[in-house]
């Protein structure tokens, strides 16, 4: 067991972890942060995506011990103090159905828009290609991202 210290959703937290515990398990089971979901536990589906220092990662493929001293942001962090324009657009365009993949999809899309405020369709598809969604057919997700992009000043 090792003690790690990192910023989780703007708050400095410390937690004891085993060296083989994944960030996903630690976030969900030890820190009560439930938005990252387990869909495959091997990096295929993207439902567990979180941001480490602003970059999206699959938290099932990261050992918790690796985030010592870093900054982790999950959908809970993004949703404070209020929903982002992207999240509002997700509601507007029905960009989710069952909602299980939504936390990971929103993390990926947020990262994309942070790095590229006006992505084209191919760039959007590329950015989301690691997030599996079985419900929506993806089209409504593209629409939400494009809408946010359109409403931003060039």
């Amino acid at each position, binding site marked *: 067991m090792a003690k790690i210290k990192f910023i989780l959703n703007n708050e400095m937290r410390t937690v004891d972890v085993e060296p083989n515990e994944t960030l996903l398990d630690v976030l969900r089971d030890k820190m009560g942060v439930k938005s990252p979901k387990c*869909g495959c536990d091997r990096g*295929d589906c993207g439902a567990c995506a979180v941001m480490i220092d602003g970059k999206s990662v699959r938290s099932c493929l990261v050992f918790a011990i690796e985030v010592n001293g870093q900054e982790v942001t999950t*959908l809970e962090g993004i949703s404070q103090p209020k929903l982002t324009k992207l999240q509002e657009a997700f509601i507007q365009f029905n960009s989710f*159905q069952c909602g299980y993949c939504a936390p990971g999809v929103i993390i990926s899309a947020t990262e994309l828009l942070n790095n590229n405020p006006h992505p084209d369709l191919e760039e959007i598809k590329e950015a989301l*290609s690691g997030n599996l969604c*079985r419900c929506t*057919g993806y089209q409504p997700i593209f629409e939400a991202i494009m809408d946010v992009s359109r409403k931003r000043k060039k």
Partner: protein
Amino acid sequence: MNKYKFVGKPIVRIDGREKVSGAAIYGDDIDFGPNLLYAEIVESTEAHAIIKSIDTSEAEKVEGVFKVFTGKDFPYKFGLYMKDRYIFAQDKVRFVGEQVAAVIGRTPQAAKKGAQLVKVEYKPLPVVTNQMDALKKDSVLLHPDLGEYPHVPWFFPKPKTNVAHWRKTRKGDLEKGFKEADLVFEDEYFVPRYAHCAIETHVAIGKYDLGGRLTVWSSSQSPHTQRHLFAEALAPMGLTHKDVRVIAPHVGGGFGGKAGVTMEIIPAALATKLKGYAVKLRWTRQQEFVNTYQRLGVVAKLKVGVKKDGTITALDHKIYWDAGAYVEYGANVVNAVGLSAIGPYRIPNVSIDSVCVYTNLPPGGAYRGFGYSEMLFGLESHMTQIAHKLGMDEVKFRLKNAIKEGDKTAYGADMNPNGLLECIEKVAKEIDWGKKIVSKDPKKAIGKGFSLFWKAPAMPPNASSSAFLKFNEDASINLIISGMDIGQGYQTVMAQIAAEVLSVPPSKIRVETPDTDRNPYEWQTVASHITWSSGNAVKKAAIDAKEQILALVERVFVIPKDQLYLEDEAVKCTTRKNFNLPLRDFVVNGIMTEDGTFKGGPINARGMFLPEFSSANSDPETSQGGHPNVHYTVGAGALILEVDKDTGKMHVIKAVEAIDAGQAINPDLIKGQITGGLLQGLATVLYEDMRYDEKGKLLNPNFTDYKIPTAMDVPDEIVPIIVEVPQPDGPFGARGIGEHTMLPAAPMIANAVEDAIGIRIKSMPFTAEKVAMAMLNLKNKKGK
């Protein structure tokens, strides 16, 4: 189109904020504290074998292992339509992955370690993994005791064979029909198995408390059906329905895979032997592939007779289903298609044999489309082939034979009002049917494919829905219902229906996921029947509330009820323009009268719906005489497909789908179903495929090897078209559309591939490799 204020409007989902913020709670998100136990399942490594012995001694020694259970601890059968399944294997295993034992650990790691140490000794039996082999006289029998299994009266198992159910439908005179035909055409079609691949795997937590009550938290489409099956299966433990409670939080996708009962029975049963503890079972992705239902595999033999003018005279449709080791739910897929395998056509002489066959593969069961996708792949491929053989345009051929209101279905009931012709015409127009597109790239060929579809809800004739509705002080509403929002937008649609009746905006209506203790009965969220059935119950509950409100106002203000109406969250009067009584003033606390007393009180309403005209009674040899299906939803689709002539790689340039929703309660949500369902359907034909080895082991139980669509695989353009020919007994005329959206995908691709490259492929999936090889074979043949 301004008939309604909330119905027919693209209202945003009422579950939006919780789902996009991460607030929505799914089964695995619920905390049970440090006393939670974890179950790990020991699975069969054999597809068919006698269990000689199970040695749990080493597992029990593992630190943190709490207990180990085997089949001996739970000699209980269960099953929705046919009780052919045990909670744990008893003396025999029948598929690779079947649950043999459970190790209960203080941690998931301890349970897993223990499970690895359970030693099971098997005596292998012959294995049959193909339904056609299983039908042979000398095949090994999976269920020698089939004749003794309890089942619903409309199933017809054949004891001492592997046939679990045989649905026969006969209409007219088949021989005469074929004699009248100018052309009789026969062919065979093959469909493999598929997996649902909801991103959330199954999870259930069972807790049998010291007071003797069993609570199960479950990712389920069917909380009440689960409660019923748990209570039935665990009755020997002394449990009754009132002692069993199922709580269903948000579900991370269902697609039929979370219908009925699969793995949830395990923690429910385990809990009864772990009094005072909660025990959790969550499937890994691999288990999700193997140990829930799968879509059944199909071999279909079609023979259709047509006249020169294109009139269909006869259809002989034989469908053999690979239903897997247990068919307790899957046999109803077979039944449903056996009644409906004429497709949306008017055919006077019909013979359908839909045969449910046991094999040593995992159990087949409900999958979005409930067998109709599999059936329509053959039928709609066949219809295009016949039209071509007649030299007739395939869309004209379909228009000529399309079923109309009042035409007889295969089992003799009248077809419901429908907009099939309108769907066909709108799709043909949108896709510019008849106009050939030539690719600018000489390496690419472009083709168009067309398909019709239909589907009826497959449900027992007494499947019912109910609803409670209660007003709060501010005239907001809690709508208490038990259907599941598995992503389709059920909660929003139900809120819209209640909103329309009560003139309260959907944003003021809260719908939560159900708890069988508090929420009224709902059969299941399956069969695309929930908008129709639960919608009717909700509408009745809202009308009940409205009646209570108007009766109270009539009594207090002495205004005849027929002069009162609801508008903008208030009671208004047709004869007194100034009369405006806001609901918030009285729906909980009543109306104060002149003497200071109050009349009325909290408005609590209820509604119920059961299709009283439905009946499963019919002649087992012909299926004539009953009314097994409440109605059909119909539609048409077409697409433009680009095929790479070298690699076989396919790309959908444009897809169009028209569906008759009766009345779209929420057109945006229907469009969402079309966009999502169509892609799910396209994936089944373009790349998804469950691969088994000859010993019945699934070779690709993960998302690396079983490819589901990513954002890169979306068609360039999808055009959803909503047609509205009202369903007379639907809420505001609505009928369900959720499953239907994926139905036409496979035949559209098959027909488009032929149009593009002149090759007819008759077995799914159409991988790029398969298409490339077919082109190569054709080239070699021509070369000779």
